[in-house]
C-alpha cells in the first residue's frame, strides 16, 4: 500500500491514480479460498478484512512486481544483467500480503529471490534496475548485484546468496527487537530447499528458547533448484517441522490469506515467541536465469498453476467481481505499469558504472583502508592497476 502511495504523488493524474484516490477505504470482508492449517495452534479465521483501496493497490503493486521480473528476464537475455538472477514471478502475493500486515519498523530478511521484496519495502524500480545492471546508483552502489538488495531505513535486511545463512541473521534481528523492547517483529524468509539446513533448526531452537519475536516464513515453491521437495525432505510439511514451535500453512498465491496469516503471526510472535508460516507458492521461472526450469517439472504443471492460482489474476477477478474497477481501467493500469518499468530501465541504462576507486570503499568503515601502507604507515604502496 505504501508503495503505491509513493508513486501517487509522482504521477500526473492518470486513470489508476484517480482510481486509487477515489477508491473507498471502507472495510469489506472476503473469505480466503482455502482454509489455514495449524500445527500446535488454532488457525485464524478465513474471513479477511480488506477494502477496495487495498485490493486495488494489491493489484497495482503485484502487477508492478510481475512486470519488473519479466523485464529483468529480457534484460538478462540481452546480457545487461549478468551472473545469477533469481526471479520471483508467481510468488508476488507473499511479498504484498506481508507488507499489508506489517509496518516498516518490522524487519524482513530473505535469501536471493529478493527483487520484489525490495520493491515492497519501498525500494524504487530505478534502484533495482540500476543495481541489477551494476550501475553506481543501484541500491548497493552496483557492488552487490541481484542477490544483495538491501534497504536499511525500511527494515529490509537483504538479499543473501548462501542458502539458509539469512535465518540466523533474522534470529539476530528478532533478538535486537526484543532487546530494545520495541514491539516489532522479524520475518525471516527462506525456501523449501533451505528448510533442510541445520542452521534453521539451530536458529529456531534459540528463538523459541528466548521467546524472540521471530516469524519464520517458508516460501515453499516446491523445488530446490532442480530437486522436488519430496526428494529433499522426509517431511515436506514445513510448517510442522518446528515441532515445539507452532506453524501455519497458508495459500501463498492468495494475497489476502497471506495478509491474514502475517497479521496473526505478528500478534503471536509479540506475545508467545516464534511461529512458522509455510506459504504454498510457485515460481514460474526456473531457479535462476541459468536454469530453464523445465527439466524437472512439466510445462503443463507450470501453465496449470498459472491458470488456476495466479496471484495477480485472483485479485483482478476479485476486483471485477466486486465492481471496484472496470476491465478497461485495469488494463490501463497495466499499461501505465509497463511504461513506468520501461522508463525506469531507460533511466537506469543511462547511469554509469561505479568509479574504479569504489573498489576499495565499504570494505571497512572509513578510517581503515584496504590500501596497503608502507612501513612508515604513510607511503601508499598498493595502487589500482
Amino acid at each position: 500500500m505504501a508503495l503505491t502511495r509513493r508513486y501517487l504523488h509522482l504521477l500526473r493524474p492518470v486513470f489508476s491514480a484517480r482510481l486509487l484516490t477515489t477508491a473507498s477505504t471502507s472495510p469489506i470482508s472476503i473469505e480466503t479460498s482455502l482454509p489455514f492449517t495449524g500445527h500446535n495452534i488454532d488457525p485464524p479465521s478465513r474471513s479477511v478484512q480488506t477494502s477496495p483501496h487495498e485490493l486495488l493497490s494489491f493489484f497495482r503493486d503485484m502487477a508492478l512486481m510481475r512486470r519488473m521480473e519479466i523485464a529483468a528476464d529480457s534484460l538478462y537475455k540481452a546480457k545487461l544483467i549478468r551472473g545469477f538472477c533469481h526471479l520471483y514471478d508467481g510468488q508476488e502475493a507473499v511479498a504484498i500480503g506481508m507488507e499489508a500486515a506489517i509496518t516498516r519498523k518490522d524487519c524482513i530478511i530473505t535469501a536471493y529471490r529478493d527483487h520484489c521484496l525490495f520493491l515492497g519495502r519501498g525500494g524504487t524500480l530505478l534502484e533495482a534496475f540500476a543495481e541489477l545492471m551494476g550501475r553506481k546508483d543501484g541500491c548497493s552502489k552496483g557492488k552487490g548485484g541481484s542477490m544483495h538488495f538491501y534497504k536499511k531505513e525500511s527494515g529490509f535486511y537483504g538479499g543473501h546468496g548462501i542458502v539458509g545463512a539469512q535465518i540466523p541473521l533474522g534470529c539476530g534481528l528478532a533478538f535486537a527487537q526484543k532487546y530494545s523492547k520495541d514491539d516489532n517483529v522479524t520475518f525471516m524468509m527462506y525456501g523449501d530447499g533451505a528448510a533442510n539446513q541445520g542452521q534453521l533448526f539451530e536458529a529456531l531452537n534459540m528463538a523459541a528458547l528466548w521467546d524472540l519475536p521471530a516469524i519464520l516464513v517458508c516460501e515453499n515453491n516446491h523445488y530446490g533448484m532442480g530437486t522436488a521437495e519430496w526428494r529433499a525432505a522426509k517431511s515436506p510439511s514445513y510448517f510442522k517441522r518446528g515441532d515445539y514451535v507452532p506453524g501455519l500453512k497458508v495459500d501463498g498465491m492468495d494475497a489476502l490469506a497471506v495478509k491474514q496469516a502475517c497479521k496473526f503471526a505478528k500478534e503471536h510472535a509479540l506475545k508467545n515467541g516464534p511461529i512458522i508460516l509455510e506459504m504454498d507458492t510457485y515460481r514460474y521461472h526456473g531457479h535462476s536465469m541459468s536454469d530453464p526450469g523445465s527439466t524437472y517439472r512439466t510445462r503443463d504443471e507450470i501453465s496449470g498453476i498459472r491458470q488456476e492460482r495466479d496471484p495477480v489474476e485472483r485479485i483482478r477477478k476479485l476486483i471485477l467481481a466486486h465492481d471496484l474497477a472496470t476491465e478497461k481501467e485495469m488494463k490501463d493500469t497495466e499499461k501505465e505499469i509497463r511504461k513506468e518499468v520501461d522508463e525506469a530501465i531507460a533511466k537506469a541504462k543511462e547511469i554509469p558504472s561505479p568509479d574504479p576507486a569504489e573498489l576499495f570503499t565499504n570494505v571497512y568503515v572509513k578510517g581503515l583502508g584496504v590500501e596497503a601502507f608502507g612501513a612508515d604507515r604513510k607511503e601508499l604502496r598498493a595502487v589500482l592497476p
Partner: protein
Amino acid sequence: MAASFGVSSAAVQAVKSSASPLPSPPVIRSEARPISGRINRSRKAGKIATHAVAARTENPASAASKTGHEVLLFEALREGLEEEMERDPRVCIFGEDVGHYGGSYKVSKGLAEKYGDLRVLDTPIAENSFTGMAVGAAMTGLRPVVEGMNMGFLLLAFNQISDNCGMLHYTSGGQFTIPTVIRGPGGVGRQLGAEHSQRLESYFQSIPGIQMVACSTPYNAKGLMKAAIRSENPVVLFEHVLLYNLKERIPDEEYVVSLEEAEMVRPGKHVTILTYSRMRYHVMQAAKTLVNKGYDPEVIDIRSLKPFDLHTIGNSIKKTHKVLIVEECMRTGGIGASLTAAINENFNDYLDAPIVCLSSQDVPTPYAGTLEEVTVVQPPQIVTAVEQLCR
C-alpha cells in the same frame, strides 16, 4: 628443505608400491617419462600418452595427428568420474542436484541413470552434513566424491573438511583413511557476486592432512580427477567456473596425472611465472605479448596447491633466477603468499630479484563488471611486472 623435495618422490614411491589390486595406467611425470610399468586397457595398442603438457590446439602437429577425442573440460571431468566409478564400485557421488538434474555444470550428467540414485546421491541443501556424511562413509571404506555446487558453499562444511576430513587419519593413529574427493567450481566468474566468487584454496591451505589440486585444462582435469579418486588421502579438487567450456583433444587411452606435480606449460629462460587455474590463461595471453617484445618467460602451472612441487619450481628458478607468481587468490593469505614464503626459504640463493606476486585485491568481489575486472589480475599487469622484473 629436504622434506619438500621428498614429498614428490615419496608420492611416486607410493604409486609404485600401491597395494591397490586394481590395474593402474602409467603415471605421467612432468619430464614426460612414464614411470610405472604396466600399461593396461589401452584402446590403442602400445600407445601411451607421454605429454604432461596439454596438447594445444594451436600446435599443428597434434591437431593433424587426430588421435584421441575432443572434449570440453566438464566432459573430461565426467569421463574421469565415470571411468573411476566403473573401475571401483566403492566410488560414489554426493551433492546437490548431481543426480537427476545432472549437475549444475553438467559434470555428473547421465551418471545417475547409469549407476542409480544411491551411488549418485542428490542431497538436500545441507553442506555441513553431507560432507560429514561423506567423511563417515569414507571411514568405512567407501570413496565418496563430494560436490560443492559452488566452492563457496563448502564454507558451511569447513569444520567437517578441516577436523574430520583432514585430521581423522592422524588423530586415529592411522586407523582410518579418508579417501574423499571434494570438488566444485570456484574462483571469480562473470559477475556472480561476492559470495559466489570465492577462492577457498586460501582458507583450506592450512588444513593438515588434505591435498589440494587445481585443474586448468581438460587433460589435467580428467587426470587429476582420476588421481584424486584413487588417492588414499582426502583431496580437494578446485575447478573454475569460467573454464568448464574449454575444449581440448585428450587421449583415448587411460591416463592419470600426478597429484603432486606441476605442469610445464611453456619452457623459457628469462623469468619463471608460476600460476594455476584460470590465471594460467591470463598468463599465456600476456606471454604472447611478452614474446613479441623479446622476452622468453617460463610458465609453470603449479597444479598442486598443497603440497607445492618445489622440485619443478626449484629447477626453473635455478635457470631463470626471477619469479613472478600470478594467482586469483587475494593478496592476504593466498596461495601466492605461501608460495612466496616457500620459495624464499628454499631458493633464496638463486634469486636475482625479490619475488613478485600478483594477486586479486583484498576486497569482496563486486558485482559491477568494471569493478570485477579490476579485482583480478589482468594480462597487461603481468606484462608490466615481467618487464620490471627483467630490467
